[in-house]
């Protein structure tokens, strides 16, 4: 919300379901109480599925409401359950299954050979995590006797990930990466996040 205001945006109100909430109808109904039709949300997994399904069944798309959110809202684990109900949702994340680079193409096809599903962001995170460890261990010849050396080696790791160029911020140890603006579309029978824009080399402000 701070970022939104800094860039000239305003909010009209917020609705906050408690964690572990099962019934989204009260909250989605409450959205209709707001003067705006642009709704940003932060859900993932079960909550995202519940939210999107309720959003549709209470007729918000037909009434002209538009869904925005952090990318986890429409990751593949959610999309495989809600399918085209999420179409049109715009979210931001450091990866999307439709991302057009060589690493991602080979990652997605390798993943699909192993499992019958499209990979989701959690698979990418695990894959990159192991990749980073692998690079670091190679650099120090797998000698893990000195934890500081391992940590230093990890700090210096950089490689081409399915998400694009990947490196660590030396100060915060957060990744420095591109953030993609994605729109959910159903194409060739699969509901996926398509890339509509990108913000390059974003350093996570969190410490």
């Amino acid at each position: 919300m701070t970022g939104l205001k800094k860039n000239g945006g305003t909010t009209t109100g917020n609705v906050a379901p408690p964690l572990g909430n099962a019934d989204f109808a009260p909250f989605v109904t409450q959205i209709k109480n707001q003067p705006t039709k642009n709704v940003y949300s932060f859900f993932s997994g079960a909550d995202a599925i519940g939210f999107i399904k309720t959003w549709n069944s209470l007729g918000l798309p037909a009434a002209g409401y538009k869904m925005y959110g952090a990318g986890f809202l429409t990751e593949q684990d959610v999309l495989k359950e809600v399918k085209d109900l999420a179409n049109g949702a715009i979210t931001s994340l450091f990866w999307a299954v439709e991302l057009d680079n060589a690493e991602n193409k080979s990652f997605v096809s390798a993943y699909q050979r192993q499992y019958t599903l499209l990979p989701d962001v959690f698979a990418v995170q695990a894959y990159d995590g192991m990749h980073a460890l692998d690079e670091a261990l190679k650099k120090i010849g797998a000698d893990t006797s000195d934890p500081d050396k391992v940590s230093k080696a990890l700090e210096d790791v950089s490689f081409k990930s399915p998400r694009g160029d990947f490196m660590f911020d030396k100060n915060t140890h957060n990744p420095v990466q591109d953030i993609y603006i994605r729109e959910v579309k159903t194409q060739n029978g699969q509901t996926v996040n398509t890339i509509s824009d990108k913000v390059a080399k974003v350093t996570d402000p969190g410490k």
Partner: protein
Amino acid sequence: MSPELLFEQALNGLSFGALLFILAAGLSLVFGMMDVVNLAHGAFYMLGAYVALSVVQRTGSFWLALVVAPLALGILGVILEPLLLRRLRGRHLDQVLLTIGVSLVIVDQIGAIWGREVRSLAAPAGLDGSVPLVGGEYPVYRLFVIGFGVLLAAVVSVVHQRTKVGMLIRAGVEDAEMLGALGVNTDRLFAATFAVGAALAGLAGVVAAPVFGLQPGMDGDALIYSLVVVVVGGLGTLGGAIAGSALVGPADTFGKVLFQEFALAVIFAIVALVLLFRPTGLLGRIRVAR
């Protein structure tokens, strides 16, 4: 809140309450008859939902699932009661502890069989759309849930008040031991009661699945809400389950949107108030400990 939104929220609350009734009726019945708070009730609910998922995947029929899942849970109940609970008859706290164990096993097996990712179940054809209503569109399925809950409450009430089986249940809830002295086989009565309780949990699981989805942790949520309902309504009485769910469903819905910061506190505040002024619940009676 505009009148239209108020109406829509009322429907949200009623449909939630209707689900709670299906869920809590079984818990209340088992407690009333056997003096056991069945903490596996949430796991039975969860299992019902997953069995329904499999039935729908195999046959495509939600309606078949609505029959098969409660049946499967009923069979499980009729096996578990003599196998486990009966051995601890009269040791109520040990029985409660046992039901926790049963729930852990069931939930773990669900994870092993169906996986631990989030799943969802589509509402059956004909009920999967929305209808125009004051304030916009409203999902047909949630209206169906209200109707189903009310119908079930009506049927169960008639059975409870007007039939031989209902008479046995009312007598057994009051004094099962005395019923035994009058020639009723309480072993069989308890097994049947436990089976019906499990079947009702399974039924609630099927009906809830298209609304709430299926995911790890759903058993705990269901258990807590059903406990709240029976405590508020009055332990072990059918009227209590009806009154409790009719109050808790809408109260939870309005509490969540009107007092966002205290969303979960609202229903527990109701529990505290009810217990303060009516320790036996809205329609509960004082039970004589024997």
